[in-house]
């Protein structure tokens, strides 16, 4: 059990005060986004304005925002501040292989760092700690988001970035990193690599870890904690909302506290778009209440989770959410990277003679996600020469890597095999068991 510490008093507001704060902030953000053409038109169509919002339930009169909307107004059609006021731009992968962008003002970066600091503190990070960030630093929000959250806590950051596992272990040993920030599966890779080097992973200086970026399970938590002798905490976020920092676990580790003073979170039936009963799984729909540069209303995350509002033992009054147990679209998260089947299709189209007859298989045989693309062989692809056939596999693998950033195994399949196993509509066979 971690010592219970709470960074901000807003995490513990009485629910009525929190609701009043949310409504005040909701009106303010609706006022501000009315200058964005997308929202201005939608407000006019629905006859809503900041003044017409009388309670939090009125959020349901506001328009949704989807990934497709962001793409249609690319690159930065949702800004509410002049372009020269932006401090940073991040991006996330999209179905076309081109990222969609999210922008931050200086104040947004402060807010973001503080939100990350809150869950880091809740999960044991203290100013005297050294925290090693093994997330990628780049357009992806994981690395930079956690980096500045750690600095905000006053702890020491080791920006190791992703990859080079042997060096990660050396850094931990040399610098005494007590806290690890990465994807849960990478933590298992670190443990495995340590054993290969003859190092007992339990002897590494790590005490805590904060994991995000991919789905994982309680079973994985137990395995990671046993192998590395640490406490592992879960956090959640997505770049369109802000990045990591939307929610995170406290010492009780019984759900992730949603940072409700900054985000209004709905849990909706993805078909009817009506709220699900409290505690039932639904799609998370998030309104950013306080972001300055690019606040989105009712962003449809496509993530399925449960939300409940019972008080928590830690003293925070904020609602909690379960792990993400599924998606409402066909997005896959493979080794922490978002991959859409349409990206695989795009990669295949770049290889002459292939048709979109393919099956995507994802498995996690031990600790690493493995992506396999099974592609039907067509007469025009068939060669009597083995080297030509192997080159075809390599070319497909290269294109998939270019479009998705993920290394995939490519298997050539006879046409009838895919039909037999998959049918026409099913493109994805996800064999991982990721829901508890």
């Amino acid at each position, binding site marked *: 059990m971690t010592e219970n510490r709470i960074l901000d008093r807003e995490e513990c507001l009485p629910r009525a005060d929190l609701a009043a704060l949310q409504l005040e902030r909701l009106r303010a953000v609706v006022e501000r986004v009315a200058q964005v053409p997308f929202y201005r038109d939608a407000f006019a169509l629905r006859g809503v304005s900041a003044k017409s919002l009388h309670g939090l339930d009125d959020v349901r009169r506001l328009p949704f925002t989807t990934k497709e909307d962001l793409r249609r107004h690319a690159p930065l059609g949702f800004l509410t501040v002049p372009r020269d006021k932006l401090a940073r731009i991040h991006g996330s992968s999209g179905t076309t292989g081109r990222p969609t962008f999210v922008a931050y003002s200086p104040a947004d970066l402060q807010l973001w760092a503080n939100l990350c600091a809150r869950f880091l503190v809740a999960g044991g990070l203290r100013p005297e700690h050294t925290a090693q960030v093994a997330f990628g630093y780049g357009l992806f929000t994981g690395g930079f988001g956690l980096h500045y959250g750690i600095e905000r806590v006053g702890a020491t950051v080791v920006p190791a970035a992703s990859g080079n596992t042997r060096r990660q272990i050396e850094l931990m040993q040399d610098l005494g990193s007590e806290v690890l920030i990465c994807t849960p599966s990478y933590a298992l890779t670190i443990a495995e690599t340590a054993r290969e080097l003859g190092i007992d992973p339990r002897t590494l200086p790590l005490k805590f870890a904060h994991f995000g970026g991919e789905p994982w399970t309680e079973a994985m938590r137990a395995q990671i904690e046993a192998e590395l002798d640490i406490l592992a905490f879960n956090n959640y976020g997505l770049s369109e909302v802000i990045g990591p920092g939307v929610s995170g676990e406290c010492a009780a580790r019984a759900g992730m506290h949603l940072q409700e003073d900054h985000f209004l979170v709905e849990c909706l039936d993805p078909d009817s778009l009506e709220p699900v009963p409290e505690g039932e799984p639904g799609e998370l729909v998030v309104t950013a209440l306080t972001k300055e540069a690019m606040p989105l209303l009712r962003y449809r995350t496509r993530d399925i989770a449960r939300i409940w509002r019972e008080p928590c033992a830690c003293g925070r009054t904020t609602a909690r959410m379960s792990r993400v147990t599924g998606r409402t679209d066909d997005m896959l998260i493979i080794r922490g990277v978002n991959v859409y089947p349409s990206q695989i299709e795009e990669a295949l189209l770049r290889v002459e003679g292939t048709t979109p007859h393919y099956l995507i298989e994802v498995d996690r045989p031990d600790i690493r996600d493995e992506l396999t693309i099974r592609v039907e062989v067509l007469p025009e692809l*068939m060669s*009597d020469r*083995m080297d030509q056939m192997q080159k075809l596999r390599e070319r497909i693998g290269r294109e998939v890597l270019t479009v998705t950033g993920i290394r995939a195994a490519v298997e050539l399949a*006879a046409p009838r095999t895919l039909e037999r196993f998959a049918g026409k509509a099913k493109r994805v066979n996800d064999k991982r068991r990721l829901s508890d």
Partner: protein
Amino acid sequence: MKLPQLSVFLENRPGSLAEPLRLLADARINLVSISLADTEQFGILRLVLKDWQAAKNVLERDGWVVNVSDVVAVDVPDEPGGLVGMLDLLAAEGVNIEYMYAFCLRRNGRAVLIFRFEDPDAAIATLARVKLAVVADNELF
């Protein structure tokens, strides 16, 4: 002269070799030669047969992916060094071999080998120039 060779894509799973061969058997099509190239994931079945067009139709009708390529049958002495002597000649002439396999043994002390050359026509011309016997299809089928 060139011989048409059928190449059939096979997945690496039990039964995948027998299935196309059974189709040919049911159609009363006889094989003259068979060779299998394989990787851990898939294989290429190569067939030389007289009724290659009929065989191709039968296989394709059942959904098999079939490729037709030209190979050359070459007659070499069935004795130690018979093949090496021939390969030396081809190497000296700069003829590139993609792959090869043995066809069958004949009683008169000669062997027939199947070659997939990079350029079959040029290879046949070279073989004639270096006095290596190319086997015609009417001798094989």
